[in-house]
C-alpha cells in the first residue's frame, strides 16, 4: 500500500497559523501613532496654556510696552544678515521688567518670548535645549538589549536630538503662522520643522491686550523631543512585549506541535508495526491511556486490531474446530457403514455402500488435513530446536518425492557445502512435502525445479513449477489458513487451502519468511522460503 508521505507537518501548519499574530506589531504601530497624536495635542494645549498665562500677566499694562525701542535690538534687527554670517546668538531682552515677569513663569524645556507688534523682542526666557538627564544605571541584560534590539529601534525610529539648528537665533524672533494669528487677536499654535530637519518645534502664540488693541504677543516654544521620546519609549516597550510574546508563543506552539506530531507518529509506527506484510496482527498493540482525541484514536486502533487478531485467530482455529466437530458425526457414519457391511446386502445396496465408503474416505482425508494443520500449531510449542544440515534433509525428501510422484519431472542439484539452520528437521520435511505436493499438482506434468543454496546469512529454498500464474493480489493471501487459489470445479482430492498455511507456520517457527511470485516470463510460480542460518 503506497501512501503519500507527509508534505506539510502539523508543526509547519501551526507555525503558519501563528503568522496571524504578525498583525500584533501592526496594531502596535497604530496604537503608538494614536498615542503620539494625543501627546502632541496635549503638548500644544500646554504651550497654549503657558502662553495664555503669561499673556494674562501682561494684559492691560501699557506701561510695559511704553519703553522706547532698544537701539541695540533695533541695530540687531537691522543686521540680521551679518549675524547669520558671524554665528548665531539670541537677541537679548529689551524689557527687563517683562523679562522679570516671565522668568517666573517659564518652564525648563520651553522658551517664552514676548514681542511687540513690530517683532521686537521685549523679553525672552528659557531654552529649547533641555539639559540631558544623566543615563540611569543599567543592568547587564538591559545593556545587552540596548546594544542589539535597541540598535534596531534606533534605525527604525526617529530619535530626539538636541543637535538641531535653532532658527529663532538666526531670525531674531519667532515669526510664523501663530505669531500672525496672535497679532490678529487669536490664540494660535504652530508646528514647524527646523531648517536642518532634525527637530520639530511646537509653538503657541497669545495676543497681549491693552484695552482693545493687541500690543504684543507671547510665544511659547518647545521642541517635539519630549513627545518623540515618549512615543519611542512606548513603541519600544510595546514591541519588546510583542516580540517576547511571539517568541514564547511560537516556541510553545512548536514544542506542542512537536509533541503532538511525535505522538501521532508513534501511533502510526505502532499501527504499522502491529500488522505484518501479510496483514496479520503481529503483536499486542499498546493502547495509549491519554484522555484526548489521540489517546482515543489509539484506543480505537487497539480495539480494531484486537478484533482483527480475534478474527484471524478464529479463522486459523476454524480448521481445528471444524475437524473436532466433524469427527463425531463421521464416526457415526463410519461405524454404521462398518456394521452395514457385515449384514447381508443386495447387489444394489453394495454399489451404494461402495459409493458411501468412497465419500467417507474423502471426508476423512479432509479431516486428516485439517487436523494436521491444527496439530502442527500445537506441536510447535513443544518442538525441539536443533542445529542441523538442511542439505541431506531436502535431498532425502526429494528422493522420496521421486518415488511418490514417478511422473513428475523434478530437477534438483544438491549443494556441496552444508547449510546449517536451527530448527526441527521433521518440520522441514513436512514443509517440503507441502511445497512439492503443491508444485506437482500445479505443474500438471510440467517441470519442477528445486533449488537450495545459502546467500549471506540466509538459506534459500525455492520450488519453481511450470503452470498457471497466480491471480493478481493472491500472492500474500496464499499462505493464510483456508485460502486456496485453485480454479473452481476441480475434482478428486479436496483442497482446503491448508498446505501453504502449514508452510508458513513452519517457516515462522524457523524465524524465516516465505513468498510466492510468478516467474518473470509468466510460465509458472516460484515459492521461496528463506531461513536464517544457525551461526549467524
Amino acid at each position: 500500500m503506497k501512501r503519500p508521505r507527509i508534505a506539510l507537518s502539523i508543526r509547519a501548519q501551526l507555525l503558519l497559523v501563528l503568522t496571524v499574530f504578525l498583525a500584533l506589531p501592526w496594531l502596535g504601530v497604530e496604537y503608538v501613532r494614536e498615542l503620539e497624536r494625543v501627546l502632541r495635542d496635549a503638548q500644544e494645549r500646554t504651550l497654549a496654556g503657558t502662553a495664555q498665562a503669561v499673556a494674562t500677566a501682561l494684559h492691560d499694562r501699557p506701561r510695559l510696552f511704553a519703553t522706547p525701542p532698544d537701539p541695540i535690538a533695533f541695530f540687531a534687527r537691522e543686521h540680521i544678515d551679518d549675524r547669520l554670517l558671524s554665528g548665531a546668538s539670541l537677541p537679548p531682552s529689551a524689557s527687563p521688567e517683562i523679562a522679570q515677569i516671565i522668568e517666573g513663569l517659564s518652564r525648563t524645556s520651553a522658551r517664552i518670548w514676548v514681542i511687540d507688534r513690530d517683532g521686537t523682542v521685549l523679553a525672552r526666557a528659557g531654552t529649547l535645549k533641555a539639559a540631558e538627564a544623566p543615563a540611569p544605571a543599567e543592568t547587564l541584560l538591559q545593556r545587552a538589549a540596548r546594544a542589539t534590539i535597541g540598535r534596531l529601534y534606533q534605525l527604525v525610529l526617529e530619535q530626539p536630538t538636541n543637535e538641531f539648528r535653532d532658527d529663532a537665533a538666526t531670525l531674531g524672533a519667532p515669526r510664523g503662522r501663530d505669531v500672525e494669528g496672535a497679532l490678529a487677536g487669536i490664540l494660535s499654535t504652530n508646528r514647524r520643522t527646523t531648517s536642518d530637519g532634525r527637530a520639530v518645534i511646537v509653538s503657541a502664540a497669545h495676543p497681549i491686550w491693552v484695552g482693545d488693541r493687541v500690543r504684543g504677543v507671547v510665544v511659547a516654544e518647545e521642541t517635539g523631543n519630549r513627545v518623540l521620546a515618549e512615543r519611542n519609549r512606548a513603541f519600544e516597550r510595546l514591541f519588546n512585549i510583542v516580540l517576547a510574546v511571539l517568541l514564547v508563543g511560537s516556541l510553545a506552539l512548536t514544542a506542542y506541535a512537536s509533541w503532538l506530531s511525535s505522538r501521532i507518529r508513534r501511533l502510526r509506527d505502532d499501527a504499522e508495526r502491529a500488522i505484518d506484510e501479510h496483514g496479520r496482527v503481529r503483536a499486542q498493540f499498546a493502547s495509549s491511556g491519554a484522555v484526548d482525541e489521540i489517546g482515543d484514536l489509539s484506543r480505537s486502533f487497539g480495539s480494531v486490531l484486537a478484533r482483527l487478531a480475534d478474527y484471524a485467530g478464529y479463522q486459523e482455529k476454524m480448521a481445528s474446530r471444524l475437524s473436532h466437530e466433524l469427527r463425531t458425526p463421521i464416526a457415526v457414519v463410519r461405524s454404521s457403514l462398518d456394521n452395514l457391511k457385515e449384514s447381508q446386502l443386495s447387489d444394489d445396496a453394495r454399489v451404494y455402500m461402495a459409493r458411501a465408503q468412497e465419500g467417507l474416505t474423502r471426508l476423512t482425508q479432509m479431516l486428516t488435513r485439517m487436523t494436521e494443520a491444527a496439530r502442527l500449531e500445537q506441536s510447535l510449542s513443544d518442538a525441539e530446536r536443533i542445529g542441523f544440515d538442511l542439505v541431506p534433509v531436502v535431498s532425502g525428501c526429494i528422493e522420496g518425492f521421486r518415488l511418490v510422484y514417478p511422473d513428475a519431472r523434478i530437477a534438483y542439484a544438491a549443494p556441496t557445502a552444508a547449510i546449517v539452520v536451527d530448527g526441527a528437521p521433521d518440520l522441514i520435511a513436512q514443509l517440503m512435502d507441502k511445497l512439492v505436493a503443491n508444485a506437482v499438482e500445479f505443474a500438471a506434468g510440467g517441470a519442477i525445479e528445486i533449488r537450495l543454496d545459502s546467500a549471506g546469512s540466509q538459506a534459500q529454498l525455492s520450488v519453481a513449477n511450470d503452470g498457471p500464474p497466480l491471480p493478481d493480489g493472491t500472492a500474500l493471501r496464499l499462505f493464510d489458513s483456508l485460502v486456496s487459489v485453485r480454479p473452481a470445479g476441480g475434482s478428486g482430492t479436496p483442497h482446503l487451502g491448508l498446505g501453504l498455511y502449514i508452510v508458513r507456520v513452519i517457516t515462522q517457527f524457523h524465524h524465516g519468511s516465505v513468498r510466492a511470485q510468478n516467474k518473470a516470463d509468466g510460465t509458472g510460480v516460484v515459492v521461496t522460503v528463506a531461513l536464517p542460518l544457525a551461526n549467524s
Partner: protein
Amino acid sequence: MRRIAIVEDEPAIRANYAEALRRYGYEVTTYSNRAEALAAFGTRLPDLALVDIGLGDDVDGGFALTRELRALSATVPIIFLSARDSDLDIVSGLRLGADDYLTKDASLPHLAARISALFRRSELASAPPATEDIVERGPLSLDLKRLTAQWRGQRVDLTLTEFWMVHALARHPGHVKDRDALMRDASIVVDEGTITSHVKRIRRKFLALDPGFDRIATVYGMGYRWGE
C-alpha cells in the same frame, strides 16, 4: 464370554460399537456418563473398557474415569476412544494407565483387532514365553504373543500401537518403512504429524532405558528405518 464396557456419550456411536462388538462375540454393556459407569464398575469389573474422553458436559470425564478404574484394578485393559487427537490428550491418557489410544477415525475391524490383541496380551502375561513367537533383533526382543518388547533384557512399556510400529520397523531391519506401511501395520489412520509423534514417544521410551539408543532413524521424505 468376555465383557466389554463402552463409556460413550454419543448414542449412535455407542449403539454401533456395541452391536459390532457383540457380533465379534463379546458381551457388551454401555454407559453414557461417568457416574453410571463407575457405579457399575464398583459391583463388577469389565474385562476391557472402551472410554471416550469427553462425556457430555464432563469435558475430561474419561480421564477421571480411567483414574478411578485403575484404582479398582491395575490390569483391566483400557482403550481411549476420542474425537480429540492432540499430543497432550494422548500423553495424558496413556499416563493415566490406558493401554491404547484410538481416534474415532478408526474403523470397526481395526477396533476389533486391537481389542482381541489386548485380550491376548493380558491373558498371556503370566504364561511362559514360547520361543517360536519371539522376534530377536540384537538387543531387541519382541514377544508377538504377549505383545511385549524387551531391550537388553528390560521390558519397554509400549502401547499396542507403539508395539506394532516397532514390530513393523524391526521385522525388516535396514528397510525404510513409509507412513502408509506404518499405518497399515499399526492399524491406525492418522496424519504424518501423528506418526512423527508416535515415533518420538517410542524413541523416548527406549532412551529412558538406554541413553545411547539410536536404532530408529528418520529418512526424510520417506519414513523410518530400524538400524542394526
